[in-house]
């Protein structure tokens, strides 16, 4: 696609905005529509667009399949990590009110807790989306 200047420049301009928009959806998720799943898909869309325009080889340099694989697993760990943290601090599993010290306002715990688990969802969905794209785009199996 070396001669498609508009596509290449357009992709370069758009990519950062797509990523920022994903984060916007992510941080919007605790009060309004949005959340980790949508954010993860949008975040992955930036990489898919990059791969479509600049080719799979370049995309793999930017985002190696191994990283996508690790992201896919790490997100679950982040999500559950929040749950375990609240459990170790004396609450039930995923009881965010216990995330901070008792003198702290428990609503803050609820606020950051939900962002924490949504971050886990984002990371996993992003990783899996990119890995799925690689799996379909590459004929050969891409080693992780």
């Amino acid at each position: 696609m070396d001669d498609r200047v508009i596509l290449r420049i357009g992709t370069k301009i758009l990519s950062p905005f797509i990523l920022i928009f994903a984060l916007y959806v992510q941080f919007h998720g605790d009060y309004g529509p949005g959340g980790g799943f949508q954010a993860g898909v949008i975040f992955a869309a930036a990489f898919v667009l990059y791969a479509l325009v600049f080719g799979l080889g370049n995309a793999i340099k930017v985002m190696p399949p191994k990283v996508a694989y690790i992201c896919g697993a790490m997100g679950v760990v982040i999500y559950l990590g929040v749950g375990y943290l609240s459990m170790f601090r004396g609450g039930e599993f995923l009881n965010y009110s216990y995330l901070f010290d008792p003198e702290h306002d428990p609503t803050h715990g609820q606020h950051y807790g939900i962002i924490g688990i949504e971050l886990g969802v984002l990371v996993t969905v992003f990783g899996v989306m990119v890995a799925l794209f690689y799996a379909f785009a590459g004929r050969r199996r891409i080693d992780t």
Partner: protein
Amino acid sequence: MSQNLPALLVVVPMLLAPIAALLNRSGPAWVVAAGGSWFAFGAAVQLLRRVMTEGVIVYSLGGWAAPIGIEYRIDMVSAFVTVIVTSIAAVGVIYARVSVADEISEDRHALFYAAFLLNVCGLLGIAITGDVFNVFVFLEISSLSAYSMIALGHDRRALTAAFQYLIMGSVGATFIVIGIGLLFVMTGTLGMMDLAQRIPEVWASGEGDRTIAVAFTFLTVGVTLKLALFPLHLWLPNAYTYAPSAVTGYMAATSTKVMVYLLMRFFFTVFGEQFSFDRMQLDMVLMPLALVAILAMSLVAIYQTNVKRLLAFSSVAQIGYMVLGISLGSVLGVAAGIIHLFNHALMKGALFMAMGCVMYRIGSVRIEDMKGLGKAMPWTMAAFVGAGLSMIGVPLTVGFISKWYLVQAALAQGSWFVAAIVMVGSLMALIYIWKVIEVAYFERREDEDEIQEAPLSLLVPTWALVAASFWFGIDAGTTSQVAISAAETLLGVMP
């Protein structure tokens, strides 16, 4: 920490699954999977003990009490099912190390163990959750991991088998979620206990009667598809035949059992016995299907030439016994169904594991390839015979206990016909087990001396299950006591 045990039972395997995937090496991933399975086993046994002494354990996730939040609700039935799942998983994971190394390519071991842990987590979640939508979520976790584990089979047909299961399983899951959705529309709640209270109200008001009935139908068809009740069993034989041996042994003993549990949970706890049996006349539907399953599937099993496939059809027949117990609708009948969950898990797990040993040594499980194995692999075939006796229902084995209770339950209702069919089913089991034994012990092969006995790491787990199937056949006091009190809990008859 101990008050968090209900959550830990599910989330420890769940956390260890991505860790196993991240380690990405066969050995460490196995250690993680083994640790997770044994932890879950310990936790499940402890929870069962606690339920036996203290009664129902309720755990509110995130501190939000049901019906607003999701609660884990562990009563006798769920505790017993978690013990079944985790005990098989704990034995199965030991078995898996050598068997998986033999049948699955090295770079996928870590992913296999991750899928295994997720499957354990999903099945345990279904067993202990008290929220119907949460059931669906865990159902998907366990199903998706099961599809991927089956697809890892070294035969290429494993892929089509897994795909077939994927399609059928997704249809089942969709039916279940439609049923849950209809219930939610009519009652505005997802908590099982809350539903149990509100469904009779809606039903009595007469307005939502039809919607509730349709929801009931969707749930019944969806769950029976998942548990492979005849005639919705078509996915099962291929899935069990082509899956890796360790997966077949583990799945045959756990996943359909949990689905039978789910069926009972919906019938007796959520909808209530009165609705299920009086309004929907469930017994008129389930009993004929169960009886046909026992007869027809045993008959099909007799004509199989692949032993794994034979055992898979036998599984469908055995599911018939469990559903038959449920369809009787009495405490004794449901208890017979529950006790057969455990007993069948032991014997079918052992039979499939014995076949895994054969697979490991001779690379085939076709009946004609098993000539002379009685001499070449005495311990493996002895395990097969031991578990096979149980399948037939010989006294002093668990199979006898199941059938004893089932026949008693049938006779208590005066159903001589049902009791007779149970007996005929046993005779047919004798035929298909004998077919294998005959070839293995009474025919000779030339290379008898070249075939070695299976390694200990496969034999010990297999024999652990065989020994358990004799132990609980001789000392059936504990299991039958638990099963009867579980049935009483389900039917709301307090002792």
